[in-house]
């Protein structure tokens, strides 16, 4: 359902993601672990475009969320002047066309040869066409992807109930009455029915995070992204938030979780990803991931955290 294709993210000179690809299927619970500064959060935030990838594409089902990255489409590369020129220079009788094409495409990708301007009309219109056909409204896409933040980010100017109903009512997903009924049911489910009219500043971290989770659920998302949901919590409160997340997982919610909670990864994940230096270094089922790690950096990491 989410398809992240070869994304790079640079903040000025600092490159945080160096070509990450990952497909997330419906129903999966993907847990991303790794050392701080390894690009985990940035990767997650690229999925709903809170960070805009410098290169690469992000797709939600059939909808494109980013601009077209020409390097990812060989049928676009072959339309470029750079390709045509290289092909003409190298093609002689007896050379296999297919093979030469592959070779040149590989070289263009490897050496970053496509220019921003001057690649010709065919190339430009092909990009435009593909973009127009697939681009979806980013706000509608985000509404399908819930997000839970490390620092909760409840709207401080609104009561708990308004925090929950604001977006679905504003975006006309639910009527106000429906939204209130749904919010109350969700609050009861996480044991916070009595906090309906409280302001966020009066709540504990664990309470805030549980509300942040049900606020995301109000939009009926198809997937929820968790960005270190327990990292800012007192140790005592970690359990209550994790248990809400485990319940969600049991119900079949698609989840992508960046976390340091290895126990949660072992118990809930269907796939665990290890990220370091802006790359996916290892990706496996939790059993294999924890019992039989391959990457040396992962082995070192696990020996420290387990």
């Amino acid at each position: 359902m989410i398809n992240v294709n070869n994304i790079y993210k640079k903040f000025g000179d600092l490159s945080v993601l160096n070509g990450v690809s990952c497909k997330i299927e419906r129903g999966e619970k993907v847990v991303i672990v790794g050392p701080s500064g390894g690009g985990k959060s940035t990767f997650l935030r690229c999925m709903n475009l809170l960070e805009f990838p410098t290169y690469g594409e992000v797709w939600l089902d059939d909808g494109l969320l980013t601009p077209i990255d020409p390097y990812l489409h060989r049928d676009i590369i072959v339309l470029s002047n750079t390709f045509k020129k290289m092909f003409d220079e190298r093609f002689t009788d007896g050379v296999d066309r297919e093979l030469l094409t592959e070779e040149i495409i590989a070289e263009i990708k490897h050496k970053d040869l496509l220019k921003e301007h001057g690649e010709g009309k065919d190339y430009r219109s092909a990009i435009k066409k593909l973009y127009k056909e697939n681009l979806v409204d980013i706000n509608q896409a985000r509404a399908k992807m819930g997000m839970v933040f490390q620092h909760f980010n409840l709207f401080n100017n609104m009561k708990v109930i308004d925090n929950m109903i604001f977006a679905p009512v504003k975006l006309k997903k639910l009527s106000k009455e429906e939204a209130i009924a749904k919010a109350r049911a969700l609050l009861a489910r996480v044991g916070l029915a009595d906090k309906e009219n409280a302001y966020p500043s009066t709540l504990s971290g664990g309470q805030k995070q549980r509300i942040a989770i049900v606020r995301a659920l109000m939009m009926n998302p198809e997937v929820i992204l968790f960005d270190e949901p327990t990292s800012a919590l007192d140790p005592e409160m970690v359990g209550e938030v994790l248990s809400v997340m485990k319940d969600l997982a049991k119900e079949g919610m698609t989840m992508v979780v960046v976390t340091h909670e290895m126990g949660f990864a072992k118990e809930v994940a269907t796939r665990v990803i290890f990220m370091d230096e802006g790359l996916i270094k290892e990706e496996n089922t939790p059993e294999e991931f924890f019992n039989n790690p391959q990457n040396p950096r992962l082995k070192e990491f696990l020996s420290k955290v387990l």
Partner: protein
Amino acid sequence: MTNFLASGFGLFVEIFTNSEYLTMIFEGLKNTLIISLGAAVLGLILGLIVAMVKILPKNKFTVVPKAICGVYTTVIRGTPMALQLFIMTFVVFAIRGFPQIVVAILAFGINSGAYVSESIRAGLLSVDKGQTEAGRALGLKGSQTLFNIVIPQAMKTMVPTVGNEFIALIKETSIVSMIGMYDLTMVSKILAGSKYFASYFIPTTVVAIFYLALVYLVTLIIKLIERRLRKSDKR
């Protein structure tokens, strides 16, 4: 001495009881109020627009508006208000019959906008980025997030400083008397020059009291707004 005080008191009473003088004062007060209120509204609108342009990310679409807003605040804050008023009156709107009060509102509003924009900008920046992110992550548009989530929270830091700016504005309107407009300050000058008073002492004191009362009222209103805004802070 007692004689002087007694006569002073008599003049004081005279101002507040003689309908002729009262009418003059209220006419001046009305103009002061119209200019202040008009300029405050204009300043608020301008300030909000300029502040929002200034917090936009830099790209090829925003570079020109951002530059314009930068020049605006620099020029307006870098030149004296009286001079700006002269320029508006004698250069920009040097049109016979153009209502002076409109010129004054424009001059003070444009001036106020430059200061208000900085207060608003500081307020908007004081709201945690996570609030915007949470709004956007739910699928809300940038404008929906700004107006419903960021601005209400920014108000808490904005209201005291913007209020301060309005108080300064009310008093600064007194310089319209320099272009011959009939405001509270002008009334004090006219009365002082009249045969009956022939002194600045009583007219200026009385007008000062009116300014003071006006500013005090605005201060009260600001405090009231601040208290309402702090509702969500109660622990």
